[in-house]
Structure formats: structure tokens, C-alpha cells
């Protein structure tokens, strides 16, 4: 449920470093399940820069809305435009087709949780 090669935030975003100073960002399996059917993802423009923890967009489901916060400081290199027509990809494949933005890391991402720590956090939240 929480792949070991990803880093996680307490707000349920994931960050996947790609090795060349860039990373993909999305929301976790736990987050998509809590939201329910996603109907719209509001994403930033390419070129926008965000500090770690800064809001970069929102994800809307039928019943609620949630802010998206940047796991690490970065500049947006690409956004997943296919989510405009297929927002359900966030539910169906949160770590794959449901990715949201690709960023160039401009700071360190050392403060993020590993899979084990995130799983512990989630299990504490859901009990």
C-alpha cells in the first residue's frame, strides 16, 4: 500500500525522487481512499515555484476538497494534464497514472517520512 521507494508527508502526499534532481509528487493510497471519488484536480502552472509545505493545488472529490501541499521545495517542470479528463486515475493508480506534478528539487527532502514511518502514522490515524 505504501511503496518503499517513495517519501511521504504527514499530509498524505508522496514524493518519488527520480535520481537526477527531479521528483514526482502525488497523494497516497490512504489519502485517495479517504477522499473517495476524485472529480477534479487543480494543478499549478509549469514554472511555478513552491516552498516545502506550501499549497500547490487542490483535489476535489464528490464529498469534499483537500489541499495539496508540496513535500519539498521545488519548481514545477511538468503537470499531469491527463487528470483533467481522467481524475479517477488518482483513485485507481495513486502512485502511477495518478501522479500530479514533476518538480525540480530546489532544497533538501530530508524531513520526509519513509514508508515504515508513514504506515505507522496512518495506522495511528485510522484507529
Amino acid at each position, binding site marked *: 500500500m505504501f511503496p518503499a521507494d517513495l517519501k511521504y508527508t504527514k499530509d498524505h502526499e508522496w514524493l518519488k525522487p527520480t535520481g537526477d534532481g527531479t521528483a514526482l509528487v502525488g497523494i497516497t493510497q490512504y489519502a485517495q*481512499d479517504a477522499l*473517495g*471519488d476524485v*472529480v*477534479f484536480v*487543480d494543478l499549478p502552472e509549469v514554472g511555478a515555484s513552491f516552498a516545502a509545505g506550501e499549497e500547490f493545488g*487542490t483535489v*476535489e*472529490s*464528490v*464529498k*469534499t*476538497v483537500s489541499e495539496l501541499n508540496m513535500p519539498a521545495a521545488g519548481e514545477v517542470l511538468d503537470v499531469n494534464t491527463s487528470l483533467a479528463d481522467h481524475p479517477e486515475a488518482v*483513485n485507481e493508480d495513486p502512485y502511477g497514472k495518478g501522479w500530479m506534478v514533476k518538480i525540480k528539487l530546489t532544497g533538501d527532502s530530508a524531513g520526509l517520512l519513509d514508508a515504515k514511518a508513514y504506515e505507522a502514522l496512518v495506522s495511528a490515524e485510522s484507529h
Partner: protein
Amino acid sequence: MSTAASELMKTPLNAAHRALNAKMVDFGGWDMPVQYPGGIIAEHEAVRTKAGLFDVSHMGEIRVKGPGALALVEHLTPNDVAKLAIGQIHYTAFLYENGTFVDDLLVYREGEQEFLLVVNAGNSDKDFAWVQQHATAYDCTVVNESPATGQIALQGPLSLGILQPLTKTALEPIGYYFFTHGEVAGIKCLISRTGYTGEDGFELYCAAGDTERLWNAVMAAGKPQGLVPAGLGCRNTLRLECKMALYGHEIDDSIHALEAGLGWIVKLDKGDFIGRQALLAAKGAPAPRKLVGFKTLEKRDIARDHMPVVQNGKQIGFVTSAAPSPTCGINLGLAYVPTELAKIGGRIQIEIRGRAVDAEIIPTPFYKRTK
């Protein structure tokens, strides 16, 4: 809303929901399924096109019986109770003297001198106290049957076909907002042709201890035809598309019946009832605000419950309920706005997370079934 699950009230179907892997939420103090693994959109579509089965056992049931029962219910509610035939139901409300809502409810006429009042779960205790308090002047008994009663709602165009094989009672002749008593799957039920989804369907009331057996029997009968368990999430989007009021949203103790567009349940000429004087006065003057339906114009602009309606940076109204509509495919909502702005085609602005976005006032209900 962080009450531990163990402190929440449970319906007789709680274990069944958990076995179905429902996502449970605190709904007015009750541990209720908001959705099952299929998700809100799939459940919503099943109800519109096939059928869905809801647990509504949390609803409150109050029985009023005796020579003074009719007079008491007439006094407590604005609709014309004397006009109800035995076996007939109507939608009505408990109002305060100022015409605002204690709750909304259904009145079932069980006999000349016997009525079943079905009220909202979250208001059930308040309602029972309200009825008891006023009943002292009337020759009748008032019994809170809520804990002893289970209720499930089978909703959707295939409901009749799913339910008929389970009962000897002829269902087709039961008109909309009528009921009868009979056996379903061998279980004694009150069979009511009502619902909160805008589709044809039946609400079945039974003894609490029979609820799970009834649920399983209906589920098994309907599954081959596409029946799915349906949670409170789609119950809300379904009722919103049909502009059916929800207490705490379109109606509460600060909104009176005429503002809410519920003038049709207020029979000012039926005789006295609580709230009549206030509504009579309100009818003489133009209402300052009105409940309207709207859609936001951009796909990204999704209004939500309780957001402000703004004009030039000032709040002029509020959203009561709003959501992306699975059936209509647009972002819908209901809002109270100043009456002079309440025109079909008119523009209003909703403040969504600090941003004023455009919305257009459109006709309601947003959805109406064709058959």
C-alpha cells in the same frame, strides 16, 4: 466530530456494513456507512439507473395514538392532516412559533386515531420531547419506537421488480406516498412507497431484530439485477439533485417554512397550528431571501455546503448544500440569496477558499425522473 466509534449509536446493520467494507462516519451521533467500496458515483448511478439499498434505521419513529391524536398532530404540523386517508403519507414539519424548523418529517396515517411520525435521526430526541411536551393537553399516547424499529430503503427504477417476488402484497397498486402492512421475505413490515432520492422505491420498516435478515433477503433478490448497497454519500447527492431539504442545511431553527420554498406544506386555512401566526404575517410581506439552485460556470469551481454568497466583497447569502452532480455532470448547489437576485438565469458569486467565482441561477429540481 472525533467521537470514538465505540460511543456512537449503531443500527442493527452495523456489522453488515463493516462486513461489506463500508467506510463508516459519525453522522449525527450514529456510526453510518458513507460509502461502500464501489464509491459514491457508482452507488449514485446505480440508484438512478437500477437500484440501491440504504440503511436508514437511524431515522426516528414516534407513534401517536388515541382520541386526541389527530388534533395533536394538526397542532404540531402545518400540513392538513385531516385530509390524509388511512394508508396515506405526507411530508410536513414541526415548526416553532416563529415559523422556523424544529425538524421536517413524514406523517403516516395508520388509523383514524393513529399516526406514525418519521423524523430525522439527529433530531429524534428533541422531536420526541417536543411532541411529549405538547401532548399533555391531548387524549393520546406518544411512544418513541425508534430503538425498536429498523428501516431500509430500496430505491431506483428496478425497485418494484426486485421487491415483488419477496412478498404476497401487490406492490404496483401502492401509490407514491402511500403505504401498507405486509410480509417481505417472511418478515412483518410496513411497506412505504417513499424515498429521498427522486426515484421510485420502497422504504421498509420492521422490528429492529429482523433488519439484517430483511436487508440480506432484499440484497440477494436484487443483486442479479444490479442492486448495490448505497451509503449516505450518494443519499446526499441524490437528494440534492432533487432539491429535497436536509435539516441543518436548507432548513433549521433560523429559516422559516416560506423562505425554504416549502409553502406547499403550509395550509394556513386548515385551522390553528404552531407557527401559523408567524407564517401568516410572513406571507403578507415579501420574503427578504429565497432558496435558489445554481451551477458554477467553471469545472474547477466546486461550491460546498455553508460557503458564502458574496457581492462586491460583502456576504449577501450562503450556500446550504453543494456538490459535483454525478447525474447532471455539473457543479450544483442550493443557496439563500436576496429575493431581488433570485431570478433564473441571474448571476451570483460564491466565495470558494477566498476567491469569488461566478454561478448562474438555474431551475430546480436539477433532476426529475422521466417516468
